């Protein structure tokens, strides 16, 4: 589930400045000077688009790779590698014509065969994002076919309007077919995005170094190079205050954070919901009534006000601005009379700056209500591993979206979805979602979505905490930073530049 996005802190006692002082050594080792440093809560867990299920990976993927389409900051679909596209009258056949000047970082042109190979790969067994592409009719004779070097045709099983948004998403990336057989390809990936991979270091500091791709079809990026530097949130804030990084877009900061005294606040809503996911496979959450009581007892509004006062109170699973927003469970649903005595382990990412405070808050809150709760902070990678293996009882995550359609969030609860973190099995919900996918009428589809959301709300598999509002910190040196309401993953770094006089120094104080 690609929705699980940004996460949070890690108590690193390793001195921040020791790390930063080692930066020049690291960059020299990679053979490139850094003109822009973007702090990230984690380096990518993978650089393979079909295995990306976390924001850190998606951020890097969007810089290195490019897809057929892209999202504008306001979610308009724009051409990317595809120069133009068309949809057949029956809505089942999509035809894309590639740009003639699209090149991979190795200089090879991007061809329709590369697109076909990449899409087929997304549908392969090793893909973790196959569910977004399963509408492609591979049984058809020409499910995905390259008509010529620049024309690719995709045949769908049924009309699926959000599929264009899927193709603009962060996993629908086009890779060079000829190089994919190379087993070490993703250690040094080649894409067609605005930045090309230079290298990755893990010591003395964890970073990925990229350099601007001068032959990028939209024009060479204005940044010569860009580093993704892994830092815990608290250290990242200190680094920002010290003028060592250019943006903290990877963290949902509050507007009152003191770091904004040292730079700009680019504020934007984001299509995300912070939740505490409940695993219905694990006791005591096997019991719907227990889940409902847990949902009621957890002080989500107190949590929001304490830690993210800028965020909007949650009114359901779907964030504002999407069909299904505000839909809650039916009233009068039955719930357990008292909390379960069974131990509940709730995990939160330790990379969050106030992870320890959160842990205490939640533990105190739940115990005060009579729950036998234990709240732990864990490393992001460990949390993700538990999420993937469905071993966690409860976990705090942000549900981000890859494409702006409620379908993205709802399919997480489909019985057949291997990424179904809740373990929910609801035949009616599955039926509604199947119907929604094949319904071209917008209004009818929205009605189906709302009914689906009603069911999910009634199943109480999420405690909806809040809808975050991003306060992106950027250095005063940074120009052209434009937020994207879908996610910070889609911020267009190819248009970002540094003010005159800021080259060579990080922050204009």
């Amino acid at each position: 589930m690609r929705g699980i996005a940004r996460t949070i802190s890690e108590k690193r006692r390793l001195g921040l400045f020791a790390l930063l002082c080692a930066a020049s050594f690291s960059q020299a080792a990679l053979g490139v000077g850094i003109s822009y440093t973007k702090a990230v809560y984690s380096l990518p867990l993978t650089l393979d688009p079909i295995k990306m299920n976390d924001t850190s990976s998606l951020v890097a993927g969007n810089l290195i790779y490019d897809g057929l389409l892209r999202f504008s900051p306001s979610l308009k679909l724009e051409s990317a590698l595809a120069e133009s596209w068309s949809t057949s009258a029956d809505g089942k056949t999509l035809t894309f014509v590639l740009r003639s000047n699209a090149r991979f970082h190795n200089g090879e042109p991007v061809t329709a065969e590369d697109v076909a190979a990449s899409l087929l790969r997304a549908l392969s067994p090793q893909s973790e994002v196959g569910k977004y592409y399963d509408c492609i009719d591979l049984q058809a004779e020409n499910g995905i076919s390259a008509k010529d070097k620049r024309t690719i045709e995709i045949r769908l099983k049924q009309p699926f309007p959000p599929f264009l948004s899927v193709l603009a998403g962060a996993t629908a990336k086009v890779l060079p077919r000829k190089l994919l057989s190379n087993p070490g390809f993703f250690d040094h990936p080649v894409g067609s995005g605005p930045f090309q991979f230079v290298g990755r270091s893990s010591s003395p500091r964890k970073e990925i170094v990229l350099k601007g791709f001068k032959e990028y079809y939209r024009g060479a990026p204005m940044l010569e190079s860009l580093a993704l530097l892994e830092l815990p949130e608290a250290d990242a804030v200190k680094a920002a205050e010290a003028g060592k990084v250019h943006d903290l877009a990877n963290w949902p900061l509050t507007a009152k954070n003191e770091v904004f005294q040292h730079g700009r606040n680019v504020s934007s809503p984001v299509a995300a919901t912070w939740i505490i996911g409940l695993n219905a496979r694990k006791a005591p959450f096997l019991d719907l009534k227990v889940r409902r009581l847990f949902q009621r007892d957890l002080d989500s509004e107190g949590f929001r006000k304490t830690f993210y006062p800028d965020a909007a109170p949650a009114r359901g699973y779907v964030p504002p601005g999407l069909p299904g927003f505000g839909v809650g469970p039916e009233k009068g649903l039955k719930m357990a009379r008292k909390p379960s005595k069974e131990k509940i382990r709730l995990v939160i990412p330790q990379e969050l700056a106030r992870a320890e405070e959160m842990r205490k808050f939640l533990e105190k809150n739940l115990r005060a209500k009579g729950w036998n709760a234990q709240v732990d902070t864990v490393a992001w990678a460990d949390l993700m591993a538990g999420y993937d293996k469905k071993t966690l009882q409860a976990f705090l995550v942000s549900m981000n979206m890859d494409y702006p359609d409620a379908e993205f969030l709802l399919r997480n609860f489909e019985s057949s979805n291997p990424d179904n973190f809740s373990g929910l099995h609801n035949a009616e919900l599955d039926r509604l979602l199947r119907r929604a996918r094949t319904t071209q009428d917008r209004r009818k589809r929205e009605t189906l979505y709302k009914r689906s959301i009603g069911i999910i709300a009634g199943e109480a598999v999420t405690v909806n905490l809040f809808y975050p509002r991003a306060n992106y910190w950027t250095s005063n040196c940074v120009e052209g930073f434009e937020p994207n309401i879908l996610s910070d993953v889609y911020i267009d770094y190819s248009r970002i530049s540094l003010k005159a006089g800021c080259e060579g120094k990080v922050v204009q104080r």
Partner: protein
Amino acid sequence: MSARQISFARHIHERLIPFRLGLSLAISLFLATLFAGFSISSRATSDQQLLEAIAPYLSTLVESQDRPEILRVLQSISESRGTQFVLVQDKMALASTRSVSEMDRPFVDVGAHILFLGSRYTGHEIVSFRTIARQGGPALSATIYGLSPLAPVLLNSLIISAIAFFAALAISLLSAVKMKAAVNSALAPLDQLREEIQAIGNDTSSLSSSIPIRELEEIRRTIFQSKVDLANARERLAEERAKKLNAASFKSLIHDLHNPVAALRQWLRLWTDPAASPSVREEAAGMVPQIADEILRQVGAAKRNLESEPEALREFDLRECLRASLSRVQSAAGLDRNLSIEFPDRPVVVAHDPDLLQRAVVNLLENGIEASRSKVSLSLEHSGNTAFVRVADDGVGMSESDLPIFLQGRGKSKRADREALGLSSANHIVRTHGGKLIYRKNSMGGATFEIRLEAR
């Protein structure tokens, strides 16, 4: 300091400059205002109509909270129209094409504005708005705001204004060029009139082809007639003056006879007085015939002089008369004297009869030449209202007591009465011109005869 003189065409051009600039400015301002008003009104109406048209569709999207689709729709329209949109629901910005940061924040309504024809006008934008509702749909508490910048409209107006200004100015300049040509064409008759007036002044004019402008032609004819009348008046004046002076000179001739006649009478009385001594009587017997002869000569001279009186005294340059006189004397055979001349450079205008005055000057010159040893001079001087013609020689001069006798024609010349007749004639002619003939001894020991005439 004299005022700057300019041509008539230039004068008109300069006088019209303020009007030309003012008119151009007025036209440009008028057009700019008209264009701005029309543009703003059109834009506001167009925005209102657009909001009216998309409101039902937006209501559907707002009902379903489909912000991505709302943004796509509004962004597309915004990109094509340059209008920004903010969709507000429950006082919160649900969608905004202006700024992503604005969304999910309380909508800050426009500040100071003017409400006109259903739109609001701030200092920099036209704000149109419409409540979003769908017939039969739920109440949404949503409003769509369309914000069109005023700057492009005003910039276009400014451009239109500038174009109109320069176009009007160009047209005005073109008309000025045409007008100048027309004025120059219109001034041709005036030039003709001016040339004719100049010709009248130079006394070289004659009535040429008529001037095509009636008023100017009348002026020309009036001036020409005035010239003729003036010439006639002058002629009459010259004749009257001549008559008057002739009469006066005749009186002088009569008066000149008084003394010799009185002397004759006295000598006759002595001659016939028994009481007179014989010697007196004898002297008287000698004087009576002598005086009688003088009187006879004087009467003869007067008779001849009266035959040469001017009919009219017209104003001419006296230098011409003197040059003609000199020419006549110089053409005489046997002239071996040193004859010097001194004339002023400018004309000396004197009312005279050139033939008669020439005769007088010739007489004086011939007398001077005869009396001179080697030098004779002729000079002309103009001082005040008097012209002085002087004929001088280096001869022995003459007795001043004899002068009246010779001037009055009673004298007897040693050279066949020439001198006597010449001086008497010259004296009479000068008298008929209202002048005086004066004699004096000069520094060379000879005679200087000076003719004094009234000059203009």
